[in-house]
């Protein structure tokens, strides 16, 4: 336990001293925030409130970039080797990455809420408990995804390619950039297979409709299950040495992490519930938006 705590502290220190952190955890999230709130929502409080879900989801999902890159760098530079001759275990190493990342993401999310309040006069953030549970589960699960990416790639270059391949579907098909109801029906059907979609939808409904956690349970439980699966897989595939090869079973293990959302996606495609929910959220904002305009 003390190894885990000491490593978490080290990771937080190192990340703050790293320039890449500044980009992924500060510039990018706040860039998205002001773009969404100022330009897309035109600064209208209802619009900002509606887009806060996607913005926070992007911040939370960004976790996997930094985490995969950090772990691969540690391995490539022979840093992990040095820890390997100490009593530190792979779980210490991995869990500390995830927890450190959480403590680094949380302030950014809180600042986004604060900015929404101060600059865009959003006063109602809906169900705060549901919001924070989603942020927590989301950060942990996307961080674990980063750890899996790190374990199935050998070099930083490979890591970045996989990250790009994951990032674009996650942000474009999930409603994080383009609202789900605005996407073609086919894309919506694909979107419901992505963990990101449930995060965006959950955050949005918690904020806009004050939906409590008990009504978001299915998505949250599957996200938790996904987080556990990805973390377990990353521990199975963990390599201390840069030269040790990726085991052949690695691809199978990595593919196994898709199972939770594959099942949920099939279910959601049958019921069409999720798409209907996000439509409702959008309509709610559109209506309030019209009201806002007509009173002017």
């Amino acid at each position: 336990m003390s190894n885990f705590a000491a490593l978490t502290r080290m990771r937080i220190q190192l990340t703050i001293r790293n320039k890449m952190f500044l980009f992924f955890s500060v510039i990018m999230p706040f860039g998205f925030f002001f773009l969404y709130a100022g330009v897309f929502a035109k600064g209208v409080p209802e619009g900002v409130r509606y887009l806060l879900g996607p913005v926070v989801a992007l911040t939370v999902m960004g976790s996997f970039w930094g985490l995969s890159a950090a772990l691969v760098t540690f391995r490539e530079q022979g840093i992990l080797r040095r820890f390997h001759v100490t009593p530190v275990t792979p779980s210490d190493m991995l869990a500390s990455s995830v927890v450190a990342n959480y403590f680094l993401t949380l302030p950014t999310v809180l600042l986004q809420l604060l900015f929404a309040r101060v600059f865009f006069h959003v006063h109602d953030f809906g169900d705060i408990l549901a919001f924070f549970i989603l942020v927590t589960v989301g950060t942990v699960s996307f961080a674990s995804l980063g750890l899996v990416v790190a374990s199935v790639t050998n070099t930083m270059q490979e890591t970045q390619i996989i990250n790009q391949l994951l990032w674009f579907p996650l942000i474009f098909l999930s409603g994080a950039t383009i609202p789900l109801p605005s996407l073609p029906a086919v894309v919506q059907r694909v979107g419901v297979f992505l963990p990101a979609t449930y995060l965006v939808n959950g955050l949005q409904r918690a904020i806009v409709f004050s939906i409590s956690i008990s009504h978001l349970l299915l998505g949250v439980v599957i996200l938790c299950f996904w987080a556990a699966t990805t973390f377990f897989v990353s521990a199975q595939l963990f390599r201390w040495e840069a030269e040790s090869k990726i085991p052949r079973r690695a691809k199978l293990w990595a593919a196994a992490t898709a199972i939770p959302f594959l099942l949920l996606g099939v279910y959601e495609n049958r019921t069409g519930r999720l798409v209907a929910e996000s439509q409702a959220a959008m309509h709610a904002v559109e209506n309030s938006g019209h009201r806002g305009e007509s009173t002017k």
Partner: protein
Amino acid sequence: MNNSILQVENLVKRYGDVQAVRGVSFNVDEGEVFGLLGPNGAGKTSTVEIMEGLRTLDSGRVTVCGLDPQKNSQELKHQIGAALQSTSLPDKLRVIEALRLFASFYRRHRNPEELLKRFGLEEKRNTFYNQLSGGQKQRLALAMALINDPKVLFFDEPTAGLDPQVRREIYDIIEELRREKKTIVMTTHYIEEAERLCDRVAIVDHGTVIALGTPRELKERSGDKTRLEVRLARPEPQERLKNLEGVSDCRILGDSYILQCQRPPQAIVSLVKHLESQGNELISLEIATPSLEDVFIELTGRRLRD
């Protein structure tokens, strides 16, 4: 035998089709500095990393402090300290932070401040790892190896890639540890290092131990002869050179003739006379005092750093 703290029996390690270690055996006694001397790729690092529990073995038996490195790796790691090859620390970790962090991993540890002082790193206390010089990084690596007050220390090529002055600094540190009767297993491909620092040396080549003993014993075994390395304008029959007065053996290594001789002055005189009579010329002549290099050449027909 004294109290041996580390035993290696018929150790074999394969990487795919390549057999890196082929049946290595030796014991290390408590309080001695034991060296594995050999060229790069001889299997030294594999052997050491198996003892440290970093790699698995294919067959044979290894015991360190009474523990099996594979089965009891967690416990073993509390008892050993290591300075590895091709390793690093995070760029933005400060010297003192690194020592404190690693100290926290162990049940029992030494005072990081005291180690800073001992390894001359006080001034670099708050410096980031990536701003340290090669020598400072290596001193930190040695300090970190000592952080848990280990029973056995492993130094894998502790001076590789360092310039001569820094190398001497590291020698001083290791000699001090030797005086304190620390048990150290080190690998090296530097003859001087093995002769100067090690109580006993195992000469390793192609994954096997080809000679083992104190540096003195090993040199005596090869006859304690001076080596003349000679390059000539034209080739000369090996047999003729071997039969010169004062010369006891001759072998050809690359473009040089290696003459082993008990009485060097006499050998040089007879060599020069012989060459004159043949109309041949001496291009260069080097005189090397007896060293472990001779042992290696005698056993393998190669130089250590070929």
